[in-house]
């Protein structure tokens, strides 16, 4: 056998494998990607909520993208409590000002950051929320204080369309 022949063959093998791999990838990707959120799911991106009837100290829950969103109208004492927490006491340090644009209104995803349960209102050791699934306690700013959840409850994108209407998403 000459030196050249095996080299040619090796090249052909490598080229065949490479083309084959690209071909398999091109076929597999659509099969994988079909499971991702589809166009109709993505289309339900925003929702508008009338909050005129919410009294101070109350929370309403609305559904956005299949997930509950808590909208709490906080009392003056609650705002003071939320602002007085020291950053070093927090597992996931975030200032209350960064979580509530208007301190009276806290708008956040009502989804525990541990494994996705819906925490209960006005429960737990920190006057905020308590997740019944695995015992995470959140404060009145929705920040994780105790339990297995790693992060504060998420703040979705939202804006006040007017004084009485919040647009989420």
């Amino acid at each position, binding site marked *: 056998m000459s030196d050249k022949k095996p080299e040619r063959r090796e090249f052909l093998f490598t080229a065949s494998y490479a083309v084959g791999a690209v071909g398999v990838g091109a076929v597999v990707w659509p099969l*994988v990607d079909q*499971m*991702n*959120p*589809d166009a109709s*799911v993505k289309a339900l991106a925003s929702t508008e909520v009338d909050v005129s009837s919410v009294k101070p100290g109350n929370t309403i*829950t609305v*559904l956005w*993208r*299949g*997930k*509950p969103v808590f909208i709490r109208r906080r009392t003056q004492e609650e705002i003071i409590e939320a602002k007085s927490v020291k950053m070093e006491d927090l597992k996931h340090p975030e200032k209350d000002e960064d979580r509530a644009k208007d301190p009276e209104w806290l708008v956040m995803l009502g989804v525990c950051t*541990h*494994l*996705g*349960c*819906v*925490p*209960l209102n006005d429960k737990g050791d920190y006057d905020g929320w308590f*997740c*019944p*699934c*695995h*015992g995470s306690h959140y404060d009145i700013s929705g920040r994780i204080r105790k*339990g*297995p*959840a*790693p992060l504060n409850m998420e703040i979705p994108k939202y804006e006040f369309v007017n004084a009485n209407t919040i647009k989420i998403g």
Partner: protein
Amino acid sequence: MSDHEYVPSSKFGKWFNDRLPLLSLASHLTDYPTPKNLNYWWTFGGILTFCLITQIVTGLTLAMHYIAHADMAFESVEHIMRDVNYGWLIRYIHANGASMFFLAVYIHIFRSLFYGSYKSPREIIWIIGIIIYLLMMAAAFMGYVLPWGQMSFWGATVITNLFSAIPLVGEGIVNWLWGGYSVDNPTLTRFFTLHYLIPFLILGLVVLHIWALHIPGNNNPIGIDVKKPSKDTVPFHPYIVIKDAFALLMFVIVFAFFVFYSPNILGHADNYIEANPMVTPAHIVPEWYLLPFYAILRSVPDKLLGVVAMLSAILILAALPWLDTSKIRSAVFRPLYKQFYWILLADVLILGYMGAMPAEGLYLLIGRVATAYYFLHFLVILPVLGFKEKTIPVPLSITEPILGGSPNLAMAKNKESLDK
């Protein structure tokens, strides 16, 4: 595969067998030499095959009436219960059948642990078994989601959220699993598809499991290698067939008790409330057969590490043939291992109980100790025990201790020389 050459007696049989040796296979299965000392703990392989067939048959019939849609699934299950002829029976058999399947598989696994059936040369049988067990858990979990009750929905939410613990890509993976931003209709339809597929994958793996078993042959209560065929073995048919059939009958009595007298005792009342994404039930618990692993998940205060601990608790079993360093298979001849075996069994039962209790106070503390012990057993006790333990002498054959009166090595050897 076959230990002897089989020749069909009829001319047609011979013609057929030369082209497709099904008759040889049947002959291998009937004559398959089995250790004659197998006890009733060895009948659960047959029982598990029965469970799988039962789940497939009842599942196929339920699928004829079930509608995999978030708006209609709950109602269609009620329709099966109330309107479909014998729908209640088929669904109760299927739902309780899952529990019976796990009951049998846990006995099967703990039998392996006691008699060292996972050890060389049976590692592949054991690993295939672990894969089957993982698939069973996946199938059971997805099946539990299909009725679209509150426990279905929130169980699905919690379990799929386990993947969000993966750094960086976790969130993307969860959205991909859901096909949306929460558990919803796309999740339900894909779970139905996979729930339908997995039993057939299990069926294929069961064939491999049995094939791999038929290479070295069965382990046995004294865990020694058996010459086959010999005076230590009996043919599978009729000896083992009749024993398996009797055990199956006993098992079916237990099964029928659940189906006819307490069909909902193993379920959860909250699953008769339709799924509601706005309200999480006060106390989420998985089905009983997943509770020990659930307790391990909850006992770790960190999200990622909790998930890692839970998965490791299952996957560690696959490494068992190499973690157990003892050459002696059966616990009968391992006085220390025998004690640790019962402690492990108690530990798993305690974990199961803690998994059903709220994650707080003393429950959490006991759960943590039990979790630590679980890993200690596999990672420290088993490897060390193989070197430290003083084992009891193992008899040379199954027949020897019976005829010789005691499992004594010296006596057995003595007898063997007398025989010559």
